[in-house]
């Protein structure tokens, strides 16, 4: 219930935040909405020596249509994603996923950057960003780099983000008018996904399918995508949903049930 003690720095700019991260090496963690980090700290699963609070960096909270891309600032709250007209028009899959996160209070505080950086293998937004072929923009001591979503998630709660980097923006190809679906199966309404599926149609008829709860990271259902691309009907392609996945086997669900759920949910998402 009580976090361990830490030093607190409030960053006034991205540069300041980066400077603090560099100064403290691995001891410092960024605090955005705090809805991934603070729960872990209260249970003392995380005991950072320094928290660098970037919550006031309003310049990182935005949604912009930038040509054929939607740029979402890392500090944009789930609440904003649910309501923002540009998101609703251009990347409605992101809104559909945001709507399914936790509960209203959590969505009021939680941020897209915080959620993605936390890299939970069952995070709703991760599925959407993967299916949308998003690119994550990170600022670090040596400048800015862009990380494709497919390369961002490297393990359970591990990402390609270095300890001295700050996620600033998520860039998503606009997908106005293209079919999408988000299917989530959870135990209770407010729980993390046991399995979740994000599906996004692409120009030219390609379909992207992303899964959560099906492995150590959020991942793409490559076999399904390839089958669909080869003209396999959705009702058949769904049976490939768990191919190549190593779904966890734990108290929440067995791996075989997860594999089954993935097929069912992929089938439902593709039917929409």
């Amino acid at each position, binding site marked *: 219930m009580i976090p361990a003690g830490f030093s607190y720095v409030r960053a006034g700019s991205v540069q300041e935040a980066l400077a603090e991260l560099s100064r403290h090496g691995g001891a410092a963690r960024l605090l955005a909405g705090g809805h991934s980090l603070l729960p872990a700290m209260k249970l003392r699963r995380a005991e950072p020596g320094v928290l660098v609070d970037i919550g006031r960096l309003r310049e990182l909270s935005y949604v912009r249509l930038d040509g054929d891309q939607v740029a979402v600032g890392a500090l944009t709250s789930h609440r904003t994603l649910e309501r923002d007209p540009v998101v609703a028009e251009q990347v409605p899959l992101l809104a559909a996923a945001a709507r399914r996160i936790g509960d209203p209070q959590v969505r009021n505080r939680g941020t897209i950057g915080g959620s993605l950086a936390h890299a939970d293998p069952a995070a709703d937004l991760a599925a959407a960003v993967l299916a949308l072929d998003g690119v994550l923009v990170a600022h670090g001591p040596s400048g800015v780099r862009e990380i494709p979503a497919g390369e961002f998630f490297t393990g359970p709660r591990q990402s390609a983000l270095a300890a001295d980097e700050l996620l600033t923006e998520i860039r998503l190809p606009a997908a106005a008018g293209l079919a999408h679906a988000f299917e989530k199966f959870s135990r*209770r309404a407010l729980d993390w996904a046991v399995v979740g599926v994000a599906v996004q149609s692409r120009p030219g008829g390609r379909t992207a399918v992303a899964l959560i709860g099906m492995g150590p990271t959020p991942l793409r259902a490559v076999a399904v995508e390839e089958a669909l691309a080869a003209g396999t009907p959705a009702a058949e392609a769904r049976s490939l949903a768990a191919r190549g996945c190593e779904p966890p086997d734990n108290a929440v669900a067995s791996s075989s049930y997860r594999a089954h759920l993935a097929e069912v949910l992929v089938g439902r998402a593709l039917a929409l």
Partner: protein
Amino acid sequence: MIGSAVPRKEDAALLTGRGTFVDDIHRPGLLHMVYVHSGEAHALITQIDTEAARALPGVVGVWTARDFAELPARPSVPGLERGYLAGDKVHYVGEPVAVVVATDRYLAADAARAVRVEYEPLPVMATVADALAPDAVPIFAPLESNLALEQQVTPHDVADELDASPHRLRARLVNQRCAGAPLEPYGVLADWTGAGPTIWATVQAPHRVRAEIAERFGLARHLVRVIAPDVGGAFGVKSSFMPELFLAPELSRRLGRPVKFVETRGEHMVHTYHGRDQIQEVEVGFDDEGTILALDVTLTVNTGGVPDPVGIALATLTSYMLGGCYRIPKIAARFRSVVTNTTPTASYRGAGRPEASFLIERVVDLVARRLGKDPADVRRVNLVQPGEMPYQTPFEGIVYDEADYPAALDLLLDRLDYAGLREEQERRRADPGAKLLGVGLSTFVEMGGFGPTPLFEQFGYIGGWESANVRLQPDGSAIILVGTAPHGQGHQTALAQIAADELGVPFEAISVLYGDTAVVQEGIGTMGSRGMPVAGNAVRQAAADVAAKARLIAAHMLEAEGDDLVRVEAGFQVKGVPTAEVSLAAVAERSFKPHLLPAGTGLGLECTSYYEPSNLSYPSGAHGCVVEIDRETGHVHVLRYVCVDDCGTVINPMTARGQIHGGVAQGIAQALYEKVSFDADGRPLNASLEDYMLPGMLDLPGYETHHIETKSSFNPLGAKGLGEAGATAAPQAVVNAIVDALAHLGVRDVEMPCTPERVWKAMHHAS
């Protein structure tokens, strides 16, 4: 006022954040106590290093078991005395090993983490099967095996009756372990000033707690004051004698400062005792009509790592209620309570009776399925008929009070549109695109109104009665002191309604106080659905006595005979003489004027009554659940939940409805969501509200409630109690519905909680 749905007196404070829960109370110089809990399920403690913790800022001290060796054991099973902290060994994860006191809760939490405990692991037996295996080692000294108690409840067996039955079947049912999980965890604040302590605590029986504390500290009871302030739910789990009830006052005594302990939720999930956790092996004999001829039951209770005096014997109550609301001529029952390396188990809403109702209601459904009959019809042939009441069960002393079980079932079937549902079920079975529909019935009876004294003494209480003091103020308003200690039931409201009718005092002019041993006369407490059937009658009786005396004084004032007076809104009137009237306020004021009272009349209008029930009461009813099941995922959605309850006299229909809803919600939660789980090493798998599936608003249905009001002749008020009925009735209504939905696939049972995965597997394996 009885029968009125008035809003509660309790609400204004609670709604404005002005309630007083234990953690809301601050005392000057307050210190915070935190436990160091065992992270091992079974191990010898080889060393406890407290030095680092003691050196931290704000730390006042760290204590281990040996520091409390002088304190007599906690209330325990005789011969199985339990201490306050683990001594040489730990018996389960979460058992307290050391206690830390610091100047604030943050520093105390830091210090608890700095205590280093070294363990030498012992073999872990986290299940009953492991604990009874031939190679099992005894967990709890001085027991020589893990079989803590084995009891033959009935002196006979039913082998002959089973042999003579045209049909028989066996079943093994599991009533899983649940956590009470009131939203407010356990808390204690003790301030030992002068000759004894004042203790604010989240308890259900303050006088009993006072007695136990006084005994351990060698104090006369008047020196110990126990206050149960606002208590944020209890559901039975706040009736156990947790070590902090004694450690907080002891540390306050030693330190000369107030000491507060408040559980965290994670701590609550492993430290406060759990409920249920019973394996049921059943054999039933029946005829072609489904008439049950004999029942043989062996219950195995997982009592946890340190046997609790209530928990170890709860299967007694299960045994007594095995016949449900059916006429079963012969029942044989026995139970075993087994020690395992898990958190101890004790009372949880219904405490032993829901397990019985679950068993017999599942058995009736199995019998119906075996015979190819409708479960409603099999119930009908077995139900005890209204003309047979009071009904003597096969268990001595267990006599059901007035009820009409068949009428409850008929009303339920009507409200469900049972025939329509059966048609809908067939239609959906034939349509592969439709979700499967299932209907489950639960015709239940349970025990309420605990005592009487000879029964309740066995659970350690001084009696099974309840007390009430009714006192008119000189202005005619009334203060009532009652011996219960409610925690959400609304006694301020319901008891005031009862008193208003007896006294003729407006509901608004009555205050009900409870939960403070320095204020309230000796009382028992709130558990066992005893509020209305026991305390309600105590209030009624005391109020009636006060009213009778008021009538005498009024008669004196009006120069009439008591019998010639009638009650009018303001007070008393001479029959047929509207001008000859006196207000109750005037009578009340007169009662304090010795020179103006009839000769020999004592001063004041006040009476204390102790009401001893003649027997338990038996709330009953019929609940029905309609589920639909996703054929692909196994997800169960409760479409409808319909209740017909007979709790006898309903005091306040609105709060009665709330009690039913809440109980049903916990019952549905047990059926679909909740189970306290451990891995093979005895490590808890769901010790938080993130992992323990306490259902939320979208996870539970709406409820349709109906009443049949058959007054009990066992108490003057005719009330039977209601707090535990829903939790008793609901689990099997849901499970019966699920099995019903899947019956055509050959499914005969799904173990609780019926998670989507379990349901899916049941469908998958059956087909």
